């Protein structure tokens, strides 16, 4: 048997037998720079720095109160890095009425941009910030919508419409275009940009005096903000309209004046609601321009709100008087004798499940198509008669996906802006169109525009 000593002779030597100078590792560093970087001396032991004498951590200045929110909510409508698109025209008042303009890009005039901004028609989720100037694609279904608006003006009756469609199908965008059309044609445009702001219990509320069972509530601060936006967006129209009634009993407006003066008389939130009511009633008198009343996020006003009445019962959103005004107009209870439109858009992502709303919209849609009308689910408990009544007289418009031709126009616009750096041919367009759920406009934007690494 071999001893341990004899076996040890088979082991590999642990210390290299080659001289140190020859055992250099292979390197691609040039000799000169290698000599500069390293000394031939062995590395010295690092000196431990006492932790007590550490430099104090300098933090960046925290943003002031409100700055973060302002940054989150900011709307950027131009981008100097994007190329200017040649050959597109500014929108004219009648551009969106003509079928021959369907499938073309038009730019939004500068004065309208400011007005839309005050109405909060632009959303932070839309990609306005990528382009030199905001442009819109005039789609055929929106040409039809604008013609309905024009017809409503001619017939002196209200168009009561609910815009619906899948996520990212351009419902808020359609609302923006309707507002744009209204303002260019001297309508009075009133917009509630997010219905959830009214019902999520984050703005002040006070009960209407002498109401109980159910209590009704005014939202003075929101009404004041709404009045300000109405004034800023419709100033030129409202200044030309003289008051036909005396409102000195209920508002701060004493004596004659224009509707703009009436709005300006409400200098405090406490006066906002009576002034809004006065304005709303004045707009329904004969000889007034058509009114467009728009709201985004319909399902939020068709539920119980987060507010509580003095007995601690949840307040139905329709008991908030501002919401009630909109709902009455949408249901046809308030006629708009000068013509006009009441348009509500549903929201794809931020939506509340409201069975009555789903039911009535599906019934209306089926009725419009001539299909069999769906029946209520006998096992569903959450139906709400008030919601059903509010929506049953409206028309539903479902926004469809883009056609391939429209998708191509849009992608060519992105290409001309320098934002889409691919060759735009039939193959690219068709593949992106297919990837975007057969032309859902927001998905198309996601697949081709927002995936680019700059």
């Amino acid at each position, binding site marked *: 048997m071999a001893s341990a000593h004899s076996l040890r002779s088979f082991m590999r030597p642990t210390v290299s037998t080659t001289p140190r100078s020859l055992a250099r590792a292979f390197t691609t560093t040039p000799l000169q720079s290698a000599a500069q970087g390293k000394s031939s001396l062995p590395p010295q032991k690092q000196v431990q720095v006492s932790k007590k004498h550490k430099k104090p951590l300098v933090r960046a200045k925290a943003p002031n109160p409100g700055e973060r929110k302002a940054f989150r909510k900011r709307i950027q409508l131009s981008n100097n890095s994007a190329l200017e698109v040649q050959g597109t025209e500014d929108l004219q008042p009648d551009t969106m009425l003509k079928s021959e303009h369907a499938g073309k890009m038009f730019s939004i005039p500068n004065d309208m941009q400011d007005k839309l901004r005050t109405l909060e028609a632009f959303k932070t989720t839309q990609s306005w910030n990528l382009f030199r100037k905001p442009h819109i694609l005039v789609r055929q279904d929106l040409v039809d919508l604008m013609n309905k608006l024009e017809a409503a003006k001619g017939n002196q009756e209200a168009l009561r419409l609910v815009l619906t469609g899948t996520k990212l199908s351009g419902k808020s965008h359609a609302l923006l275009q309707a507002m744009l059309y209204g303002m260019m044609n001297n309508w009075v445009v009133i917009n509630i940009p997010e219905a959830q702001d009214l019902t999520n*219990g*984050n*703005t*002040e*509320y*006070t*009960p209407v005096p002498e109401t109980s069972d159910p209590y009704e*509530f005014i939202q003075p601060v929101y009404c004041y903000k709404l009045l300000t936006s109405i004034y800023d967006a419709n100033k030129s129209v409202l200044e030309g309209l003289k008051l036909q009634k005396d409102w000195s009993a209920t508002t701060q407006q004493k004596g004659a004046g224009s509707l703009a003066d009436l709005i300006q008389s409400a200098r405090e939130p406490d006066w906002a609601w009576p002034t809004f009511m006065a304005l709303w009633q004045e707009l329904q008198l004969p000889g007034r321009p058509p009114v467009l009343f728009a709201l985004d996020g319909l399902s939020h006003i068709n539920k119980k709100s*987060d*507010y*509580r*009445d*003095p*007995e*601690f019962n949840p307040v139905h959103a329709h008991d908030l008087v501002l919401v009630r005004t909109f709902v009455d107009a949408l249901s046809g209870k308030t006629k708009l004798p000068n013509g006009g439109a009441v348009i509500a858009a549903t929201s794809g992502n931020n939506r509340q499940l409201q069975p009555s709303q789903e039911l009535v919209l599906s019934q209306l849609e089926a009725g419009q198509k001539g299909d069999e009308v769906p029946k209520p689910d006998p096992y569903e408990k959450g139906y709400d008669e008030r919601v059903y009544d509010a929506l049953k007289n409206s028309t539903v418009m479902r926004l469809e996906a883009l056609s391939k031709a429209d998708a191509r126009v849009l992608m060519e616009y992105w290409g001309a802006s320098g934002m889409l750096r691919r060759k735009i041919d039939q193959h690219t367009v068709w593949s992106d169109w297919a990837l975007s759920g057969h032309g859902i406009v927001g998905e198309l934007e996601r697949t081709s525009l927002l995936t680019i690494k700059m």
Partner: protein
Amino acid sequence: MVFIMGVNFGEGRLVKKALESFYNLGPTSSSRIMAKFSIHKLAKCGSLNPRTVTSLTAELSQMTIDNDARKLMNDNIQRLRDIGSYRGRRHAMGYPVRGQKTQTQTSTASKLNRLPRRV
């Protein structure tokens, strides 16, 4: 600064937090009080009008909160002690009252259970 029940609250303090700073007034009570006076959940003390502040103080003064609530609890414990019940004795000795083990983990009991009880 806003005075509610003799306590001074800053303008930027949420009304809900201000109410809940009183002993024996929790989320349920504060929500009910706020609903009673139609104060929304993000309201700050600075935004309350003087009449609402007065009503709030009047409402709170009718409730058993703060020192009244503390005194009530101490009275209840004192009663247990006076009648010489087991619970009363455990309170007085600084031990857990409701049958918990005492070999370890009695720090909360030894901290709080004394006469008058710490609250």
